[in-house]
């Protein structure tokens, strides 16, 4: 799984293909209603594309539970997965905002890393907790704004613009850390995420609240609708009176803020920050976002699909690790899951389009 080497067209191609899946399935539905009552039930293909990821997740949980009855289906393991995945969920949610608007933001991992380093550095320098958090969010907002200006005002390809800002941030990371590991000295800052609520780390609550908030914004407000219109038909949206530039810009800025928040939480929870922290979080976030776009609402980058994408990848790597698999197996699993889910969605879409024409 290595998106950055692919041409910048990747998301569009994927979107288009995935969308045609929805297109044909809707046609199926409506045409059965009106003309062909014979084919009422959606076929295997429709189910596979809409719920394939969920079915696969359930199967995986069953298989791991059978194979590892003592270690996998335990409350401790479930809690560990949920707490561990809270921060990746927030970063994946950040990723779907620019994706919904039709653009890639490759700087999100770097923003997370720089924000984490900033948090520990400021906290160790004696800054009070609110100041640390605000500073981190400001970092995210600034980088997001720079990305937005480059993409919207100057007209730089988003892939390149955000790659450039990511590279700058990785340099700043080395500068701030002096190329050595930063260790958090403050317990108060650590408590921000590790305080237990109902026997779970509070960071999970943050992820849930942010998911609900983003779900509301993307699905239930004009903002979300216009954001999607910007991604799906920018010219048409603009000529219909949607200020597409604003939506595009705000998607980068909000994504930057969310990624920075994820970084601050990561620093709080982990207590350390390596000078190279960040980029390794980017690809799993995108993998989850793309997996998410094949499920719940196929063809759309959607919040719950993305959350399920994160959980799927986490359950896979957790189960494989408990089975004693080495790290390389996990990576192959993640890549293969993405490859298969997206390919299946595209292939079924093609087949159905052919059948309907």
């Amino acid at each position, binding site marked *: 799984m290595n998106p950055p080497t692919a041409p910048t067209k990747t998301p569009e191609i994927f*979107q288009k293909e995935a*969308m045609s899946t*929805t*297109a044909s399935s*809707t*046609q199926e539905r*409506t045409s059965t209603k*009106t003309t062909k009552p014979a084919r009422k039930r959606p076929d295997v293909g429709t189910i596979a594309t809409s719920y394939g990821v969920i079915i696969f997740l359930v199967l995986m949980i069953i298989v791991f539970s059978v194979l590892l009855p003592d270690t996998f289906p335990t409350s401790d393991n479930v809690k560990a997965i949920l707490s561990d995945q809270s921060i990746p969920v927030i970063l994946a949610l950040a990723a779907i905002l620019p994706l919904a608007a039709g653009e890639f933001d490759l700087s999100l991992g770097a923003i997370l890393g720089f924000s984490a380093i900033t948090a520990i550095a400021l906290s160790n320098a004696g800054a009070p907790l609110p100041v640390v958090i605000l500073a981190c969010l400001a970092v995210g907002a600034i980088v997001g704004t720079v990305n937005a200006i480059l993409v919207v005002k100057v007209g730089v390809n988003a892939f390149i613009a955000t790659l450039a800002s990511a590279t700058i941030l990785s340099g700043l990371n080395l500068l701030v850390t002096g190329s050595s590991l930063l260790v958090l000295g403050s317990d108060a800052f650590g408590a921000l995420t590790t305080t237990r609520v109902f026997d779970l780390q509070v960071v999970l609550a943050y992820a849930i609240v942010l998911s609900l908030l983003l779900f*509301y914004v993307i699905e*239930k*407000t*004009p903002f979300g*609708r*216009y954001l*999607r*219109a910007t991604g*799906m*038909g920018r*010219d*048409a*949206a*603009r*000529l*219909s*009176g*949607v*200020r597409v530039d604003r939506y595009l810009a705000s998607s980068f800025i909000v994504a930057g803020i969310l990624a920075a928040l994820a970084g601050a939480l990561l620093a709080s929870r982990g207590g350390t920050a390596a000078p190279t922290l960040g980029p390794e979080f980017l690809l799993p976030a995108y993998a989850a976002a793309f997996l998410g776009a094949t499920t719940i609402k196929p*063809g759309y980058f959607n919040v719950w699909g993305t959350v399920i994408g994160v959980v799927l990848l986490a359950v896979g790597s957790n189960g494989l690790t408990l089975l004693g698999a080495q790290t390389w197996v996990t990576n192959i699993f993640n890549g293969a899951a993405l490859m298969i889910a997206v390919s299946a969605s595209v292939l079924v879409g093609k087949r159905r389009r052919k059948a309907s024409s």
Partner: protein
Amino acid sequence: MITSDTDVRTGSDALRIENLSKTFSGQRALNEVSFAVPRGKITALLGMNGSGKSTLIKVLAGVYQPDPGAALTIGGTAMPLPMTPRTAHEAGLRFLHQDVGLVDSLTIADNFAFVDRFRAPGTFGPISKRRQHEHVAATLEKFAISVHPGALVGSLNPTLRTMVGLARAFQDEEESGVQAFAKNIVVLDEPTASLPVEEVDTILTSLEELKANGGTVIYVSHRTEEVKRIADQLVILRDGKLVADEPIAELGVDDIVSRVVGKRLEKTRIPRRGLREGDVVLAAQGITGRRLRGVDLKVRSGEILGVAGLVGCGRSELIRILAGAQSPSSGHMELAGKSYAPDSPATAIAAGVSCVPQERRREGAVLPMSVRENITLGRLKTFTRNGALDGRKERNGALRLIEQFSVKPADPSRLIGLLSGGNQQKVVVARAAGFGGTALLLDEPTQGVDALAKQEIANIVRGLAADGLAVILASTDFEEFVGLCDRVLILDRGRLVAEATGEDINEEHLALLCAQQGAAA
């Protein structure tokens, strides 16, 4: 002498089409068309929009597969059908499309090379820049183009671009000079459409020189004057049928126009509405842009104003400027007596001016979204409660507009991409006109729309105007204006050159007005 040479070898017809038909899902785009293109002559191919011209060219280019039973002979050799782009090229067919098909970011030499080939020994052999440039320079010289082969195509002005495209169409790999000219058949699709009038002469002159050197040309154009000047033979298509195949010499511009338009008496004429004298809603003075050269217009409440013109006349630019999608380089606009200078479509819509853009699939509809989402796009503020979307309100609003604009099927949750072109367009019109406003701009609103939907859209527009909306309808399809517009302005190469009202708004007269402009200029 060249002509006699080739006569001996291949006969006098460079290309012969027999019994060519093409059916698209039951619709006949071409109906048993047969004609011949004489060698060493310029043959004009004329026809209105939808006459089958482009289908014919695409069959020649190997894009479309003709219906069985057709025969195609090129240079005396029967071609296997369907053609492929490769067999077309090998038979000497060269196509110069309206957009010329050059890549802006490459040099002239590179643009030449990827049509024929790079001057290299084999696919992986080293490319010799020097040899390539020499070859290209020689061809350019023949066309009196004084630009270095290493110049970027993007740096050329439109006329030079067209000339380079022309030169490329006539180059030939190993054969040099006159022989290559004699072998190739160049199909030019409206090469002068987007050129300023003073530059057209350059292109026509070089075509005449080409002919003098034995070149064979098929010239597709709407500009009757140009055709009259350079063509020897006239081929006219109407509704997919061949209606004329004759020498041009004896025909006047009027004769040509009437053959192109045909007598359409069988068509039911829609009763014209009486012109109402409302207040001036939208006025523009001296609008200048990339193509427009100072356009003045006024449209009144309740009036349907047509803007007619050929491809490249600046009609789309005018609509885009009025709709706030593009800024004029100079000029002044007023809306209901107040200065109007929209910086975006959003501003224009807020001021009461909305538009139905030309390219429905790209600029009109968001294809992966539902009918409901498309109708309410840009107007969601009406459908919120405490900042959140009110699903029921939105659905009801969409249903109301679906009914008002008779969108079929009346299903707001259906994806717009699954509707017919006509119904997609009704959705776009509903969005533009269903939320109030004082002026509606339509750019080719019935392009790619079936006859019934065309009628329905015309009725909708008529109803909107009757309710007091000021409508501007821009189109290259003159049929669209008949029975609908109160007044039609003729736009030619960025200037308004004529106006038609009343009984003068008929296809023949409008076509004649456009054709005459070429003559006047």
